[in-house]
């Protein structure tokens, strides 16, 4: 394993230290326990937004702390959810007196650790709501699984709920908007190569040279099936169709199309996927009204991409358009 890292055991801490120095105008890093807050801390009277999860998905979540998005992000070890004693002070740091919304990706580890922390926070009088993000349509039947995973759609929830909070919504409003995003966003991903967790030192799964892994999550876990490598147009259709079908998109609807890189994918390839996904949506009579293309919800250096579609209405579109000023997303 070759990586631009020092001691793998310090990978997250070293990276956070550099992140803190590079973006001192936007964020502050708290060490021991580790969490990232906006410069200046919680805004009085504003609903606080907290998200977190294993590290290795950067810029998610730390890169999304700032005006118009998250107040606090809590990174765990690589691909390992943070612990309650990190999450509890993070929830407290986000509270400006109007309550806190915790945005949690639906993984057993994340759910259990956030649940514990939220219980503790409530004991201490904090008003906390939780929204579970579960946009990954690769996990088909939740009767036989831990339920759909939260993947790239998380960015949409954080951006839009963040805008709602910034605009002064109360906890119920912001939580309602977040739930509405969750209800209308779906994703599916493909891996071209696996990734290597620093402390493991070996690729997270073995992917023969001519195979693609369809339906991967964002933790280097294997996907639902393997296919022989096919052109990007075909791969994109394998991702877009299940997403659009699950959303039951019909002609005339407007969507946000988000093509996300898994960390090691050249931007040029993401645009190839974007172009095809967009044509497929247009063939369904669906209008792509907003777009995002880039590596935002990643799995270390994994090569691959995911396609996320969010059904838009006027309110969600306006909240998406609202200003945001974070290390990784800014307009």
């Amino acid at each position, binding site marked *: 394993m070759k990586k631009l890292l020092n001691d793998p055991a310090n990978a997250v801490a070293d990276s956070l230290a550099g992140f803190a120095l590079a973006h001192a105008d936007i964020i502050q890093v708290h060490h021991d326990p580790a969490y990232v807050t906006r410069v200046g801390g919680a805004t009085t009277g504003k609903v606080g937004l907290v998200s977190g999860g294993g590290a290795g998905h950067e810029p998610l979540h730390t890169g999304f702390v700032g005006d118009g998005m998250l107040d606090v992000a809590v990174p765990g070890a690589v691909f390992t959810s943070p612990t309650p004693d990190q999450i509890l002070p993070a929830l407290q740091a986000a509270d400006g007196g109007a309550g806190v919304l915790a945005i949690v990706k639906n993984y057993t580890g994340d759910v259990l650790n956030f*649940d514990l922390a939220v219980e503790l926070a409530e004991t201490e009088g904090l008003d906390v709501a939780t929204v579970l993000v579960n946009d990954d349509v690769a996990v088909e039947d939740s009767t036989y699984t831990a339920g759909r995973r939260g993947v790239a759609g998380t960015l949409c929830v954080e951006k839009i709920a963040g805008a709602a909070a910034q605009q002064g919504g109360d906890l119920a409003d912001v939580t309602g908007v977040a739930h509405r995003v969750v209800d209308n966003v779906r994703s599916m991903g493909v891996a071209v190569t696996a990734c290597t967790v620093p402390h493991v030192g070996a690729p997270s799964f073995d992917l023969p040279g001519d195979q693609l892994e369809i339906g991967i999550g964002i933790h280097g*876990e294997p996907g639902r099936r393997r296919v022989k490598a096919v052109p990007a147009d075909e791969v994109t259709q394998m991702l877009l169709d299940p997403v659009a079908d699950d959303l039951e998109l019909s002609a005339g609807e407007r969507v946000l199309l988000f093509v996300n890189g898994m960390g090691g994918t050249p931007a040029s390839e993401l645009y190839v996927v974007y172009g095809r996904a967009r044509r497929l949506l247009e063939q369904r009579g669906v209008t792509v009204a907003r777009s995002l293309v880039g590596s935002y919800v990643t799995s270390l250096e994994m090569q691959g991409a995911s396609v996320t579609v969010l059904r838009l209405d006027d309110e969600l579109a306006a909240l998406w358009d609202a200003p945001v000023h974070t290390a990784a997303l800014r307009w």
Partner: protein
Amino acid sequence: MTLDADWAERWIRRTADTVAGRRDELTELDRQIGDGDHGENLVRGFRAVVAKLDARDGQDGATEAAGPRLVGDVLKLTATTLMSTVGGASGPLYGTAFLRAAKVTGRESIDTRAVVAMLESALEGITVRGKATPGEKTMVDAWTPAVDAAAQAASEGGDEAAVLRAAAAAAAAGATATIPLVATKGRASYLGERSAGHEDPGARSTALLLGAAVEALAERSA
């Protein structure tokens, strides 16, 4: 051969040694059907528990008069430390297991009945948190036969050692028995049918944990 706080402490220290030694094996199991961090998670957690035990033992020396040490105290320290250092699914699960176990072992030493109650409470804590039932290819598939075997051994008049040995053996068998299962809880469930053919990492670590409890019996404190 009393199951006292010293035994509990030896148990936890042995577990720390075992997971450190078997780290790569646990990692590899988790890499096959999960995300490859189970070994690292437990090493980090138990290392932290050992650090706390070391610190406490140092303090204890200074305050010998503080009175008898309880089994449950060791388990509670283990619980809260795992909870705050492991993360992932296994952190809250093992954390809750030890927390519940601590609640029924607040004594200077525990007898066979208390051993069974301890294991039952641990399992209960895991299922309350994780909502898994047997057969879903999780650590529950190691804990459940362990509890049954311990109860059986106790009802047959076995001593503490016999009860723990029965539990550990059953946990190991239960872990092996997860191999053909298709996971329906935890990260491995995302693999669907492809999860079959691999041992569940949490079941394996459960077997290691209970094996360490047996080994701690034989050992004498330093």
